[in-house]
């Protein structure tokens, strides 16, 4: 059976260049990066180089502003709770948006249970946060604003620089979840005035289980793991050298090939959207019409439910997702689409197609054929299908 993977926003394969960078770290350069001897120094050099690569990719001022973590969720959790705790004596109010990843939302929920106050900013129908709403929400006690750069479900790009500038006008620290943004748009943390940013390797053809938190020097954060001097004493534990090396290489390539990949993705996306629109009626494309990343397309299919579409596609070898992979086992419609005021029926009927750099037009042809069949089949047995709406 033919297989087409359109769930690259959930995770990507590890590219061969990245894998080649990682392999020697398993059995050749296997020293503990904290050891003083030659084996250790060799490993430490690899870690240093990886840190430099991450710093360069986002134009951090210094590479010591990069802290490796186990991934995006850890970076989000650490940034939100760690910064909120470190500045708790100044105030206990933080601001985020209603469409954040659960790693941010649930970290905020935890802070609420500790007595912090959290404002969840609404978004418009395209998923954009309004700056006026943000200004309105800032209080004397606000210490942190966390707004994601790119939404994982619909691909909308926030006005990050404007949000960061606003935060700074009021003396508030700005964190962004940059997991979906890396490789999709140019991120310059200095120019964009980002104080803290979460990143992940496995969305950019790197390995799973590794990511980083960029934290501008001077911003305080509570230590995450005690018991080791790694990551400037903030996150102890033996460094996962192969993973870190892979991440460094992956982010270097992501930035190197950004324009080329985006052009390719744009062509594939346009081809896909045109075909779907031509062949399948009663659909709605969710997210911002222009201010969006090229790789992610979120479509609602009227009258039918997303999981059953997903399963019919899966039976034909096509992998997509409903909502985000992390929430696909929850029955409630996606919190992101809900915040965008999309009806329950349309939210339940939404599918995220996220393209990778290896997808061809012939793959898209196959997917659209399979999709059209699936949608027709499900609509033929839907109680919501009205006469003349097929």
């Amino acid at each position, binding site marked *: 059976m033919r297989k087409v993977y359109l769930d690259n926003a959930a995770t990507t394969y590890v590219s061969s260049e990245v894998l080649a960078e990682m392999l020697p770290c398993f059995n050749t350069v296997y020293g503990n990066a904290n050891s003083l001897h030659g084996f250790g120094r060799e490993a430490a050099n690899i870690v240093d180089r990886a840190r430099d690569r991450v710093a360069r990719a986002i134009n951090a001022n210094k590479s010591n502003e990069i802290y490796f973590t186990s991934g995006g969720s850890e970076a989000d959790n650490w940034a939100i709770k760690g910064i909120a705790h470190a500045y708790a004596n100044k105030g206990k109010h933080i601001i985020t948006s209603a469409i954040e990843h659960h790693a941010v939302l649930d970290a905020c929920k935890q802070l609420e249970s500790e007595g912090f106050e959290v404002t969840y900013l609404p978004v418009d129908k395209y998923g954009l946060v309004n700056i006026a709403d943000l200004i309105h929400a800032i209080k004397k006690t606000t210490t942190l604003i966390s707004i994601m750069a790119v939404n994982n479900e619909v691909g909308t790009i926030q006005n990050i620089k404007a949000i960061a500038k606003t935060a700074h006008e009021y003396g508030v620290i700005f964190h962004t979840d940059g997991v979906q943004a890396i490789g999709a748009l140019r991120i310059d943390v200095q120019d964009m005035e980002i104080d803290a940013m979460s990143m992940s390797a496995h969305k950019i053809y790197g390995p799973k289980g590794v990511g980083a938190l960029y934290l501008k020097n001077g911003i305080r954060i509570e230590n995450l793991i005690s018991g080791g001097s790694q990551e400037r004493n903030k996150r102890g534990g033996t460094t996962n050298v192969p993973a870190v090396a892979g991440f460094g290489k992956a982010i270097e390539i992501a930035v190197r090939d950004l324009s080329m990949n985006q052009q390719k993705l744009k062509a594939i996306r346009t081809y896909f959207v045109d075909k779907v629109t031509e062949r399948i009626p009663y659909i709605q494309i969710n997210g911002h019409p222009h201010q969006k990343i090229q790789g992610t397309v979120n479509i609602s299919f009227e009258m039918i439910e997303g999981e059953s579409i997903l399963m019919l596609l899966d039976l034909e070898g096509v992998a997509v997702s409903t909502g985000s992979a992390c929430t696909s086992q929850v029955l409630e419609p996606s919190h992101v689409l809900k915040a965008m005021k999309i009806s329950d029926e349309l939210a339940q009927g939404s599918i995220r197609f996220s393209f990778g750099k290896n997808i061809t037009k012939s793959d898209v042809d196959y997917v659209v054929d399979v999709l059209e069949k699936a949608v027709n089949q499900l609509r033929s047995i839907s*109680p919501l299908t009205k006469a003349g709406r097929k």
Partner: protein
Amino acid sequence: MQYSQQVIDRFKNPKNAGGLRGANGIGKVGNAKCGDIMKMYLLIDENEVVKDARFKTFGCCAAIASTDVACDLVKGKSVEEALKVTNKQVLAILGEMPANKIHCSVLAEESIHSAVEDYYKKKEKESKKAVKAD
């Protein structure tokens, strides 16, 4: 989360999908918020036996498979027996289901009840009409 082969088979090729001409008991349960809407069509004869049962479902694989099995379970049964069909019987046929999908089998059971209720309502109306005509 994994579906059993029985769920997949039923979902892919349901035996009882679609509307039913002449159905005299039509039930509808669920809502779009939870992601499941089931419509059950029953054709009940003068001896109160379910002659045919079909369904239309908006929902996940488990919802579609559950209603399909529920149709099988009520076919040929008296209305009274049909009301005794439970979600356990649906599950017994479909095999293991992910915990958060058990409610689909419950909804399927409820869709039978809703269709039978509709049948009784219609019957009552008709008998009232008949009385008036007399």
